[in-house]
């Protein structure tokens, strides 16, 4: 039974510790790699290649291969759950291979790391590839509102650079194409209760996340997940992440065909595949059944597949339009066309070829330029295409390419109950509201799909079990997670809709508003993410609460909008493609740090994330709800007939909306008058980013800094307006001017007499802030400075709409980095404790 739950996958990566007396521990996939990267550590050296990690360490090696006698002494385990051995014994020999042995190996690696016999950098990537991720306090620091203090972790060893061993972390759980069954929901409920905080969190990429997980409980969790056909394998790390797909696939009115089985085939084919072991960064695939709707969001993925058909000799052939190099992140890219049509038999080999090219030629050292979009940028899509098709020709034939997609169309889901009609219900407004927003007709007559709205993607263990009951009662267990952090129950007979609604409502899962403005999407932000700058979930919760309270009075045009929030510029909340996007930044007001959000406009959710927005203004976090009110009121008042928000913004111009929001930044009260403004949503502590920032330096506060940087922000905003108006060259050049303005503002903090001469600004900036590393970001290092240098080196270039858009986005990020550097310069150095 269990073995059927997993499909076998290729290129298993096992970790073998060859314990030959002395000095060599080897982790080997059994296949040979190509490129070697070497880094040296104290008393050790690590050589990493495509599928092989070799660690040479100055410690006694051990035999940890499960086929060898175990000589390992188990370390002290004081936080492993008491049932750990029970689960291990219960599933011994019953889990599908290689999943079972890989979990055993991970357990061994945990032991070895505790004994200092695996280097921390290698262990970090190892655990990431198994879905074990750090949380905000995992560097051992925590701000208490007045200072960042050290948490009294036992302090040995670490799980990776600056990652405390004792810090419980997040476990990401892959759900290919979001497909789940009742048994899997029940297992998620058990694990959320026993190992986490009682909440399972659905992510914007159809995964689950559990928080506050002790790493030593990881293997037990993984065994219990594996027993119901779920893996955490490669949920994080430089690997192929969850393969997402439109949750309506198979039942959608508009789709070309059901992409679900192909998404599933690709997910398991690529998992552990040797050609995916050499990536410098993550790789995210997505499937869509059609081009016009946003459900698959293929344009913003590393690789996107849209169902297509063609007719040859009167016979219809299935295939995919394939795009590559899309992505959000700090500087988003729209994916570019790889091929208009790849047959379903070509799906796996073509993707394998893409992976091989990315693994072979993608950036490895600079992780900020290592996504596939940068390789496509560097080469251009034509060369990238040539390389991919050349690599495709060289691939050795693999029967799985055909076997995995053969007859998969027959695996389509079906109904449990006969088709029906929705019963007439009078006087139940909530049901009618839910019916309108959450229920959608299937292609199959008599059936509907019903969205289950989750607040910020969160669901309790009790609700998960109830959901498992309902899904089993009304369907053949057909439910999916969605990228809007909800569930979708499919194949519900229309006759059962009211009964299902009543059941859902009884467990508080019957909230209407799916996919509407109240259904706010947010990444974890400062709640748990160590990169978070502002509280995206806090703002999301506040907006949701306010919008739900007035949902009945909202104009229909406003109801249809999407709000998406990220805690920083990294876009996990997909703010670039929202109607109203927000991402977290910090600003200094009256000498205090104040959480802010950049308002992002111009994004398009439709057409598979057809266009990306740009920031127009940063406003204090506590005033973001006012910004939403102002923008939506303005939209209702000034839109023309059925004008969509995207078109409205384009017509009225971002400048007018910025003017509308500008007063929210003016006359900010003092800290003593309104201390709440100086804290973030859901967190009454005095706002600080001290728990993520490291390092400090002395400096002087220069009053004109703010003035100069505001001018730089205005320039970058104007650049966006030029782009909107089709003045592409002017847009790119204005963005470059914004770069220079911001750089000069910072240089002036140390050197008043710097001229406006670009070369001098760059030279002084480099000398004072780059060479000294003062400007380096703790997470992305020199990236923002390098963007400045690149913009300067390319001055005079001819811009395309894409390159101008990128330059603008980079300039905005550079300005944020200047703010952050200035914050460091002007912060009091004393309270911050830095852990080595």
């Amino acid at each position, binding site marked *: 039974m269990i073995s059927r739950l997993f499909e076998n996958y290729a290129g298993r990566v096992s970790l073998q510790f060859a314990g030959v007396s002395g000095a060599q521990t080897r982790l080997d996939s059994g296949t040979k790699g190509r490129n070697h990267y070497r880094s040296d550590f104290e008393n050790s050296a690590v050589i990493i290649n495509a599928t092989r990690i070799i660690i040479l360490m100055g410690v006694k090696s051990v035999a940890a291969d499960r086929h060898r006698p175990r000589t390992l002494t188990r370390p002290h*385990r*004081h*936080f*492993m*759950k*008491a*049932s*750990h051995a*029970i*689960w291990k014994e*219960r599933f011994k020999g019953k889990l599908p291979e290689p999943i079972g042995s890989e979990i055993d190996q991970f357990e061994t690696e945990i032991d070895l790391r505790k004994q200092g016999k695996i280097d921390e950098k290698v262990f970090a990537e190892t655990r990431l590839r198994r879905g074990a991720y750090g*949380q*905000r*306090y995992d560097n051992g620091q*925590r701000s*208490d*509102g007045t200072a960042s*203090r050290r*948490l*009294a*972790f036992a302090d040995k060893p670490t799980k990776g650079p600056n990652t405390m061993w*004792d*810090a*419980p972390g997040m476990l990401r759980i892959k759900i290919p194409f979001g497909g789940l069954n009742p048994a899997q929901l*029940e297992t998620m*409920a*058990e694990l959320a*209760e*026993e190992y986490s*905080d*009682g*909440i399972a969190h659905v992510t914007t990429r159809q995964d689950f996340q559990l*928080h*506050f997980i*002790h790493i030593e409980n990881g293997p*037990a969790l993984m065994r219990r997940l594996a027993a119901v056909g779920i893996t955490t394998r490669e949920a994080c790390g430089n690997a192929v992440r969850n393969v997402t797909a439109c949750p309506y696939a198979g039942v959608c009115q508009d789709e070309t065909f059901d992409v679900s089985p192909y998404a599933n085939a690709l997910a398991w084919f690529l998992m552990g595949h040797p050609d995916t072991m050499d990536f410098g960064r993550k790789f995210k695939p997505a499937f869509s059944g059609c081009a016009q709707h946003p459900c698959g969001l293929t344009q913003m993925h590393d690789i996107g597949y849209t169902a297509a058909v063609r007719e040859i000799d009167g016979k219809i052939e299935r295939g995919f339009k394939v795009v590559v190099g899309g992505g959000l992140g700090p500087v988003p890219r729209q994916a570019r066309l790889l091929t208009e049509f790849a047959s379903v038999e070509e799906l796996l080999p073509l993707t394998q070829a893409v992976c091989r090219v990315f693994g072979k030629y993608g950036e490895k050292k600079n992780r900020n330029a290592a996504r596939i979009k940068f390789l496509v940028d560097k080469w251009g899509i034509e060369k990238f295409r040539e390389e991919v098709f050349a690599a495709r020709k060289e691939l050795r034939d693999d029967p799985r390419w055909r076997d995995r997609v053969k007859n998969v169309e027959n695996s389509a889901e079906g109904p449990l109950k006969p088709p029906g009609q929705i019963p007439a219900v009078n006087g139940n407004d909530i049901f009618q509201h839910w019916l309108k927003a959450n229920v959608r007709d299937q292609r199959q007559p008599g059936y509907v799909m019903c969205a289950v709205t989750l*607040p*910020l993607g*969160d*669901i*309790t263990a*009790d609700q998960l*079990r109830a959901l498992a009951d309902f899904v089993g009662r009304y369907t053949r267990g057909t439910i999916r997670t969605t990228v809007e952090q909800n569930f979708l129950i499919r194949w519900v007979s229309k006759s059962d809709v009211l009964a299902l609604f009543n059941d859902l409502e009884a*467990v*508080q899962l019957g909230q209407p508003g799916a996919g509407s403005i109240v259904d706010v999407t947010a990444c974890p932000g400062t*709640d*748990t993410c160590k990169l978070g700058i502002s509280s995206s979930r*806090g703002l999301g*919760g506040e907006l*949701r*609460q306010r919008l739900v309270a007035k949902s009945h009075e909202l104009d229909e045009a406003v109801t249809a909008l999407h709000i998406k929030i990220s805690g920083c510029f990294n876009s996990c909340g997909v703010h670039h493609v929202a109607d109203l996007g927000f991402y977290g930044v910090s600003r200094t007001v009256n000498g205090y740090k104040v959480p802010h959000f950049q308002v992002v406009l111009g994004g398009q959710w439709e057409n598979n994330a057809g266009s990306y927005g740009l920031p127009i203004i940063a406003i204090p976090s506590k005033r973001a709800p006012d910004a939403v009110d102002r923008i939506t009121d303005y939209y209702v008042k000034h839109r023309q007939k059925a004008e969509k928000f995207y078109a409205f913004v384009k017509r009225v111009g971002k400048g007018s909306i910025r003017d509308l929001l500008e007063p929210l930044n003016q006359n900010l009260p003092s800290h003593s008058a309104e201390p709440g403004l100086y804290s973030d949503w*859901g*967190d*009454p*502590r005095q706002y600080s980013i001290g728990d993520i920032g490291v390092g400090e330096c002395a400096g002087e506060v220069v009053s004109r800094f703010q003035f100069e940087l505001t001018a730089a922000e205005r320039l970058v905003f104007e650049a966006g307006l030029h782009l909107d108006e089709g003045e592409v060259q002017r847009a790119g050049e204005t963005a470059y001017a914004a770069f220079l303005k911001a750089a000069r503002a910072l240089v002036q903090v140390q050197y008043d007499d710097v001229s406006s001469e670009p070369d001098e600004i760059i030279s002084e900036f480099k000398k004072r802030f780059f060479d000294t590393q003062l400007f380096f970001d703790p997470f992305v290092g020199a990236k923002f400075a390098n963007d400045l240098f690149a913009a300067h080196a390319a001055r005079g270039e001819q811009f395309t709409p894409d390159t101008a858009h990128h330059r603008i986005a980079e300039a905005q990020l550079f300005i944020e980095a200047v703010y952050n550097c200035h914050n460091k310069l002007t912060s009091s150095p004393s309270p911050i404790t830095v852990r080595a």
Partner: protein
Amino acid sequence: MELQHLVIKIPVAGALAVDPAKTVDLFHQWVARQTVPGVLLIDVAELLHVPDGPGVIAVGYEADFALDHTGGIWGALYRRKTPLAGTNQERIAQAVASAAQTALRLQEAFPGALNFSRTEFELIVNDRGLAPNSAGTYATALPEIETSLRAVLGHANFKLTRHDRDLRQRFGVTVESAQPFDLAALAGAGSREVVTH
């Protein structure tokens, strides 16, 4: 049968008369001051947006403390995460004491606005591997729970009601005492050095 990872929840008596969001600030203070002996507090999880959910949690390394709303019932919750040495009876006493201490701390923080039951609490074994929700677990665990509670409460005049018999649920009982208990006495009864494996 080893009873580890115990959860004790003491329900609020009457209606909740305090904004639960205020516990966010309180718990941050607990973390900042590390006010719970034997537990390293690391974070605060605010989950008030989830209906009938975990409420607000002071997340600890060894244990969590919460103003919990699971099942739509507000209560002071203690959840032991790391295993404890000792006997089952000692572990039950320790968990009850820690929950009582949590309730007292909450009451002190919100005087007059937050009161907890003096006659009832829930005891859950948060580990299906050790204690599946079966009749067998009930039969085995019941005598030990009864013995321990007699010592903790100081009398035998209480009733144990098994929770939901759904095998998917965790094993748990509701304890109803015929005589009101004193939270301070309960808090003191199990207070001793916490020893981990």
